């Protein structure tokens, strides 16, 4: 049975997706697309090859626990500037697994986000034609 509160992994993925969307579109409020982008991330993770899924799950938990030592909080409980700082550090890390984790989530967040934007563009086009 699934617990009422989301598991650590889910909380971290939501926080990471939120951070990446805000980093990509800092001047805009991307929250209206968050449900759909996060849904796409979870659906993709559920379908990816099981050995990769296992490895990414472990890495995601490591990523979430990383700031404990310095802040006493997991990633998903940090404020936005600190979350952005951690993502930037991992993105620029020399360690391939840290870069790889951020590149993976970023790719799917970008694809999910632009799929939403493209759909909204198309909907606006349809409405304009009908008007």
């Amino acid at each position, binding site marked *: 049975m699934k617990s009422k509160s989301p598991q650590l992994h889910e909380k971290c993925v939501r926080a990471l997706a939120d951070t990446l969307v805000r980093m*990509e579109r800092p001047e805009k409020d991307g929250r209206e697309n968050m449900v759909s982008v996060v849904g*796409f991330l979870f*659906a*993709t993770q559920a*379908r*990816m*090859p*099981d*050995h*990769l899924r*296992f490895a990414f799950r472990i890495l995601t938990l490591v990523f979430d626990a990383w700031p404990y030592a310095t802040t006493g909080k997991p990633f998903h409980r940090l404020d936005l500037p600190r979350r952005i700082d951690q993502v930037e550090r991992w993105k620029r890390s020399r360690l391939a697994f840290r870069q790889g984790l951020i*590149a993976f989530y*970023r*790719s799917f967040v*970008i*694809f*999910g*986000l*632009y*799929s939403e*934007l*493209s759909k909204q*563009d*198309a909907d606006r086009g349809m409405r304009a034609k009908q008007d």
Partner: protein
Amino acid sequence: MACARNRTEPVIREMVAEVAVIGSGPGGAVTAMLCAEAGKSVLLVEEGQNLPLHWPEHFSRDEILHKYRNAGVNVALGSTQIAYVEGCCVGGGSEVNRGLYYRTPSYVLDAWRKDFDVRYLSSDELMPHFTECEAIARVEYLPCEASAISKRLYEGAMNLGWHAIEAPRLYSYGGRGGSKQSMSETFVPRFLKAGGRLIADTAVRRLSRQEGKWRLDAIHTPTHGPSQRVEISADKVFVACGAVQTPALLRRSGLRKNIGNSLRFHPMLKVVAEFDYEVNDPGDFDPVHQIKEFEPHFGMGCSISKQPMLALTMAGRPDCLAYVEHRWRRMGIYYVQTTGGCATIRNLPFFRDPLVRVRHSEWDLHHYAEGLKRLSEALLAAGAIAIYPAAPEYPVLRSMADLRKLPENLPNGSGNLTSVHVFSSCPMGENEALCATDSFGRVREADGLYIADASLLCGPTIVNPQGTVMAVAHRNATHAIENRFA
């Protein structure tokens, strides 16, 4: 959501057939249809869902989730990785690709005959099989002008005096919007009409031989409802799960000789080209032009360039990504496609999905880099004002002077190789040191077991491989039927 065109059978605990075909992509669908039309009792077993051709929307996020294996997240691991995709639904890869179509170049067949000792595989011998397949799945050229994205590439090639062509597609352009000639629209309906039975959502986990028959242990996992185990009994089995899953299944079943040791790709490097006028209209037909000047080393073409695809191609360039939101109509995705990389496929204990590991030679890395330079040259000649290679190690390119500064080899570790074609993991032929099957796809030392997909191809086809997969499957199934599976 519209209903799927093809009717599936109810799945029960024990099922029996004379012939079981595992996988309904181009190889499996052609094989199943021929066996059914020859009067055999045939069960076509598909792991993916049975969905309408036009749902979800082509090249959309939902299509990736519903029709691609592992949601499109497949990686051949290595110092330079290749991300590859495979279809996983009734009709397999033919449902999700663009259907660009070629017959196999004769020099490719010559090499396969010479190196792998494949018998009876000249262009002349394969021609009737191409013709038969093309009579069922129609191959047509665009009846109207190609999209601006497509024409730009062609014009760039012409400006440089390079050989370029318009490729035909497995597409019937007649009627409203036309219709893609995927397996679910062509061979599968004909298979069902001949009395064949189709089951979907059913993954075969292992094959074993019991009392002179093949037993297939499978799991049926419907979208709604609980999973159930299924046992299928068949006299003959054709494995057509694709070039990664076929060797994985055979190896899980204890068959290993020359199986899963030689997976090949058509690795692609992509760029986004920006023009100073609009080239990208969402209503256009898919691009069809290709540059052939440098084949067999590498070829070039245009990709689907919807806004999400453009963003994904630009994902490695955070500083430029925002351009996609406002300037995407001036942008198109282009690729150079080579033949590098060779991979192994191995099952891992406790995991369902196989591990794919790839290695590249110096020659491969050189051709990736050379191909990218030549592609950029063509796009500059076509009037592109900026070229954004997907590989973030490369700078934005704006002039020939920029191209001259590019490295001779693709840097090792570049993470941007992708492939939509995988093959050659179980090559056919009489060369027993290299081949997994005989010249007609029969697995050695396994009575009544055949391979019928891209795994059989002895190497890269250089051109889009679906025509070759269909023709070889047609040839091999015809041979098996005429020889009564002896």
